[in-house]
C-alpha cells in the first residue's frame, strides 16, 4: 500500500517539476502597461468577486426555499426542481456576463 503511494507521489512530483510553462512565461519582458491597463485588471478581478458573491447569495436564497418546499411537500418535487433550475440559470447568466467582461478586459484589452 505504502509503495503504491510512494510511486504515486513520485509521479506527482515529476509532473509538478517538469511543468512550469507559466513560470517560464513570467520572464518575458512585460509589455508597456498603462495605468488604464493596470486598473482594468484590478477592476475585472473585483467585478468578478462581487458578481460571484452576490450571485451565490441569490442562488442560495432560491435553493434554500426550494429545498424547504420539497421537504414540506415531497410530491411537488419535480415541479419545484424545474422552476429552481430555471431560476438558478437566470441568476447564473448574470454572473457569466461579468465573467465575459472580465475575460474581455484580460484578453481582448479594448483600450
Amino acid at each position, binding site marked *: 500500500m505504502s509503495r503504491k503511494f510512494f510511486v504515486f507521489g513520485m*509521479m*506527482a512530483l515529476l*509532473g*509538478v517539476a517538469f*511543468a512550469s*510553462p*507559466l513560470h517560464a512565461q513570467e520572464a518575458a519582458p512585460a509589455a508597456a502597461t498603462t495605468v488604464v491597463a493596470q486598473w482594468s485588471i484590478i477592476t475585472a478581478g473585483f467585478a468578478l468577486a462581487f458578481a460571484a458573491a452576490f450571485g451565490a447569495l441569490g442562488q442560495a436564497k432560491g435553493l434554500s426555499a426550494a429545498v424547504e418546499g420539497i421537504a414540506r411537500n415531497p410530491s411537488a418535487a419535480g415541479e419545484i426542481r*424545474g*422552476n429552481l*433550475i*430555471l*431560476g438558478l*440559470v*437566470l441568476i*447564473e*447568466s448574470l454572473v*457569466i*456576463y461579468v*465573467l*465575459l467582461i472580465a*475575460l474581455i478586459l484580460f*484578453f481582448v484589452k479594448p483600450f
Partner: protein
Amino acid sequence: MEKLEHELWIVQAVNAAFGPMAAALLRALGRPVPHGHVIPDYLVMAALIVVAWAVLCLIARRSFSVENPGKLQIMLEDGVAALQSMLADYVGHKGPRYLAIVGTMFVFILSGNLMGLIPGLKSPTSNINVTLGCALTVAVYYHIQGVKEQGLGHYLKHFAAPPGAPIFLAPIMLPIELISHLSRVLSLSLRLFGNIFGEDLVILILFSIVPFIVPVPMMFLGLITAALQAFIFVLLTTIYLGGAVATEHEQHEHSEMVAGAV
C-alpha cells in the same frame, strides 16, 4: 490568447484537404482570405459532430427492432421520450411537433460541450460564432412558428398588448417586449459561450500550472457543466417556443413562467 493552445492535427488535416477549395471559394465571393488556417477550428469541430452523429445513427439504425431492442436503442428512446415529455410540459399538446429542432440542438450542444474534454479536440461551443448561430436559429425558428400558429397580425399584436395587460399600456409594453425578445438571443448565446469558454480556460490554466491530478476535479465539473448547459439551452428554447405558439386561452398559464425567462 492565440498562443496558449497548440495546433490540432485534425484541423491541419482538414485544412490540407479542403483549405485550397475554401480559399478559392472565398476569393470567388470577393472575401478576404485569412492567414494560417482557412477553415477555423470551430467549423471543423462542428462539421465533425455532424459527420460523427450521422455515421453513428446510420449504424445504429440497422440494429433497431421493435421486438428485441438493444441497449443503445433503449437509451436513445429514453432520451427522445424525455425531450418529448419536456415539450409536452412547456408547450402543450402540440409540443412533440417541435422535437426535431429541440433534439438537434440538444445533441449538437451536448456533444460540442463534451468535446472540449477530449485531448485533440476542441469545443466548438467555446467560440461565440457557434453559440450565436444556435441562438439565432432558435430565435428565428420560434418567431416563424409563432406567426405560423397564430397568424402574423395576431402574433404581432401580443407584442404590444400581452394577455392580461390593458391596451393603454401598449406604448410602454412594445419597447419592453422588443428588447426582451432581442436580449433572449444575447443571453442564450453568451450564457453558453461564457460557461464553456470559462470552463475550458480554467482547465487550461490549471494544466499549465500543475498538469497532474489537480485539473481532474475541474474536468469533472466540466462534465456537469456540459450536460447542464445543453439542457438549459434546450429548456429555454422550449419555453420560448411555448410562449410563441400558445394561443389566447393557453397563454395565461405560461405567461408568468415566460415573463422572467430572458
